Every structure is written in C-alpha cells, then in structure tokens.
C-alpha cells in the first residue's frame, strides 16, 4: 500500500516545511479552503473515518455535533498524549511528519470554525516538542497559520502544550482539565466536550493519527478514502509492534489487515523462531489473545467479535518463555499508578487487584485468590467516570480467562514450597 501517514519520512529533512511542500504538502488545505466549512464536515463524515485514539468513534459525527453548537469560540485540540503502553505510532508523525498533523489541524479548524488549537503533547516526548514548535513557527511564517490564512480571511492560532507524565490525560475530559491547568481528572459525561469542552466551549479533540488522515481525505475525496481497508472502518492504520518479533516498529497498513499477517509477515515472525504464546493486540488495556486466536481482522468493528479490541493498534507479542502472571501483575501495577484517584472503585479496587496479583506472582497466593481477583475487578467495571478502571478489570479478567492454568500453577507451586 502507498504510504500516506508515513509518506516521505525516509527523507532526513521530512520535518521541514519546504520538504513537505515539495512532496505535495499543504495542497489539501488549498483545496479545502475552496469549499464551505459544512462541506468539509460532510466530506469527513462521508469518508467513514473512525477516531484513531482507541475508541473508534466516527470523526465526522463528532465534528457535526460541535459545528451544531452555536457557542464561540470553538477549540480544536490534538490528543498527542500517546501513553497507552505498547503504543508508539504517533511518534513518527510528531517527529518526522509534523506538517501533516498541522495541515490536518488547519483543515479541521476551518471546518469547525475553530480559531484556536492546541496540541497536547505528552511530557515524555521532549524531542517531539522541539520539532513541533519549529514546525508551527514555520507554518506561521508561510502564512498557513495566523489571523488571515493565505489571505482567505480564515484564522487559526496553534500552540504546543506539554503534559507532565499522567496517562489519564489521554482521556479527553482529563486532557481538557489538564490543559486548563488543573489536576488531570476526568469529568462526568454528558455534557460532552463537543458542547462544553475547553473553558466550557465547544471543543473537538482528535488523535494525532486521525488529524493526519484529514488532508488525504480532502485530497482524494471521501468515496476513494472509504474504499481503503475495511467497510465500516476504512483508511490506512498505523500499528506499533513490540515484544518478541524479529522486526518491531511502526507499520502503516490498510485497516482490517489480519493480526497474523502483522506478526508473521510484516514484523518477520517470532524472535529466534520461538513459539508464540499470546498477543495483546491494541495496547495494554485491550484483552489478551492466545496464540490460536490471531486470525482476526484488525479494525474497530471486527476485533470485538474476536474477543478483543483494536484500541490504539499497539500489538504486543509474547513468546513461549514469557511469565504471563508477571506481565498481568506489571500491567495492573501500571493502572494503579495511573489511577487519578477520583472514583473510589478504581482508586481502591485497582490497588487491591495489584496486591492480589503481587502475592500470586510472588508465590504466596492462596486457592481463593483468582476468584477474589475476578470479584474485585467486577466491582470496578462500569462504576467509574472514565474507562481506566474498566481497562484494568478487563485486562486481569482476560488474562485469567485464557491463561487460568498459569495462575493456578503459580499458586500451587507456592503452596508446595511453603509446605516443604
């Protein structure tokens, strides 16, 4: 497949605006400015693109909701708080192709009649911060940003805002709180950000990869875009592959490519030709799959039918030597660390889950611990403002569902040792 999101990134100067323009960049913006804002919203809606941050919500619908709210000013925010463990797909866009993102944001700003935009960038990407700041400055110099973009009377001001190491700020309402200079704790929904977002004004928050798709949709048109990848879930998709594969990295492939194909073809198969044991297909919060369940199309619509989710497309591969109880313990420890503390079931419950997993993993688990872990996790699911607690519960439940024998073995070996 022709590269769209990772186009031109082999060029060492790909982040420079002149190189971007030479490769055809900012043409989609020129084209977009020929249309009415509502037509752009309509085109994005027709393209069928779903948000790439993990939830897969139709982008055009989100835009239409915000456009329908008369409150001004409106804001366009880019979620560059890529924090889901296993995910590093937005990094090549941020570091190598920043103008693709900026062009996408200008088109979005025009479509939504939003005059102010912020890129909320995670604190752990200091290199990207410098690159994005330089790119924004170049875009101002060339007249793509400012009070009168390309002399067309369109205004967008854009700046980069750096987060400070809080996974929860990838959740859109927590991101808004954080951008407002507060603790990054999620808000209850509704109201949704499209009506009451940043500073209580209509706000659209899109993932880096989503915004990077916008110029291409405008360039080739909604119908041609909708023909790429899966029906109901079209477009190119970035997959970040890590763990025990021969060629880990970021791959741009059509939506709906099979998980097996990603692992065995694009990523070269399992490291040292060992046997595959399990895969987490979409970042740490998505359900783990055993080795025999990888013949599934990787998109937002089909993955739930195969027992998991597309999430952020972060494929984490585990070979036969991996101790999955330990991985599960480490994952839950992560959720405990990142729980914002607002909702009791998550704040307390995930800590209890970690304590149970710590003793099972350390060999001092007891016979009832697995059921206790399931019970505690059931008491978190659906009882919190945001999906962080649900993610923790789902992670542990699916590790147990597919690999209960490994947990039991740890507990049995531990009690044998204690008896001896």
């Amino acid at each position, binding site marked *: 497949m022709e590269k769209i999101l990772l186009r031109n990134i082999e060029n060492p100067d790909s982040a420079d605006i002149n190189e971007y323009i030479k490769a055809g960049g900012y043409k989609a913006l020129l084209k977009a400015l020929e249309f009415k804002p509502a037509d752009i919203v309509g085109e994005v809606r027709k393209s069928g693109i779903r948000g790439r941050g993990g939830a897969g919500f139709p982008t055009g619908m989100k835009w239409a909701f915000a456009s329908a709210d008369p409150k001004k*000013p409106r804001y366009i925010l880019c979620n560059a708080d*890529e*924090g*889901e*463990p*296993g*995910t*590093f797909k937005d*990094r090549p866009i941020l570091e190598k192709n920043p103008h693709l993102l900026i062009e996408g944001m200008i088109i979005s700003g025009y479509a939504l009649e939003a005059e*102010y935009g912020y890129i909320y960038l*995670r*604190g*752990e*990407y*200091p*290199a990207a911060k410098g690159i994005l700041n330089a790119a924004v400055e170049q875009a101002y110099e060339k007249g793509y940003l400012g009070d009168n973009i390309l002399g067309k009377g369109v205004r967008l001001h854009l*700046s980069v*805002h*750096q*987060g*400070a*190491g*809080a*996974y929860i700020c990838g959740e859109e309402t927590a991101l808004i709180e*954080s*951008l*407002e*200079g*507060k*603790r*990054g704790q999620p808000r209850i929904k509704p109201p949704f950000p499209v009506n009451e977002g940043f*500073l209580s004004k209509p706000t659209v928050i899109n993932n880096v990869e989503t915004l990077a798709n916008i110029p291409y949709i405008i360039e080739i048109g909604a119908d041609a875009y909708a023909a790429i990848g899966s029906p109901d879930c079209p477009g190119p998709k970035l997959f*970040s*592959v*890590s*763990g*025990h594969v021969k060629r*880990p*990295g*970021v791959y741009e492939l059509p939506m709906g490519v099979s998980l097996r194909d990603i692992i065995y073809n694009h990523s070269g198969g399992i490291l040292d030709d060992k046997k595959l044991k399990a895969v987490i297909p979409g970042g*740490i919060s998505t359900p783990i799959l055993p080795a025999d369940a990888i013949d599934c199309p990787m998109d937002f619509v089909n993955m739930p039918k195969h027992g998991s989710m597309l999430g952020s497309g*972060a494929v*984490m591969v*585990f070979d036969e030597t*991996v101790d999955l109880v330990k*991985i599960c313990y*480490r*994952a839950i420890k*992560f959720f405990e*660390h*990142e729980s*914002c503390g607002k909702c009791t079931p998550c704040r307390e419950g995930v800590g209890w889950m970690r304590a149970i997993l710590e003793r099972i993993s350390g060999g001092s688990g007891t016979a009832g611990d697995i059921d206790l872990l399931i019970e505690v996790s059931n008491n978190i699911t659906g009882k919190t403002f945001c999906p962080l607690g649900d993610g923790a519960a789902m992670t542990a439940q699916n590790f147990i569902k597919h690999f209960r024998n490994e947990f039991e073995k740890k507990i049995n070996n531990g009690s044998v040792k204690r008896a001896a």
Partner: protein
Amino acid sequence: MLSENTVKEIGLIRSKYHDAQSSLLPALYVVQREHGWLSPEALKEVGEILNVPKAEVKGVSTFYAMFRHKPIGRHLIQLCTNVACMIMGSENLLNILKDRYGLEPNGTTVDGRFSLVVMECIGACGTAPAMLVDTDFHDNLTEKRITEILESYK
C-alpha cells in the same frame, strides 16, 4: 526567587492562553528547567504571578509524575519498566544501576551525579528497553550500552 528571565517567559506563555490557569503547567516547566525542581517557594511565586491560589498550584503540580518536589542530581535518568521494556530486560538494567552506581529508584548517587526515576511507558516499545537521560532519548539498551551512555554524562 525566580529569575527575571523566568518571570518574563511565564508572562509570554500567559499571553498564549485565554485564561491564566491554563498556563500553569507550562509555567511550572519553565521553573523546573531553571531550578531542577519545584520548591514550595517557587510554587508560591508561580501562583502569585498567575493569580492561582497556592493550594491549587501545589495540588496540580503534585498530581503530575514529571514535576519534581525535591532536589535531584545533575542528570535525571528516567528508565522505562513497563511491559515491553520489562520483557526486553529493563529489570536487569535496574540491577546494573544499583550495582555500578548505588542508584535506587527515586534515589540520587552520593556524588549528586545521577538521580533515577522508573517510568511507565515512554513510547519506545519497538526499541525496548529505553530511557530518557535529562531530555535525551536512548533505546535498544544493553548492559554495555547503558554504561557507555551514562559515562558521557558527567
């Protein structure tokens, strides 16, 4: 006391936002870059400049893992220990830091050269294990490489 330049830079940041508190996180970054950490006095001063109550400033700054509230060494090592880095050997790297430098998580070497913080995912899973030293990214770490890299930070 914040320097004149820092106060000026905070003023410049303030002008990019429609309300004062939105500039709090960037302002804290500016102060941390100057002092290495955020002292209670510095937090108070930032609050006064932005007209944000000092309890709020403290509540916000302590929420975020990357803001530091005690002095640190000359160089900050932020080593990722999340799943991808863990299965590719970050635990061994932690042992090396302990053996070679006497460095424990949240600790500082006796000579004040390095401080260590263990991180959740830093987005380098494809080239794990990885760390940040100050603002420099280093990945594909091995026992040999981490020692060589750290020797270049004096």
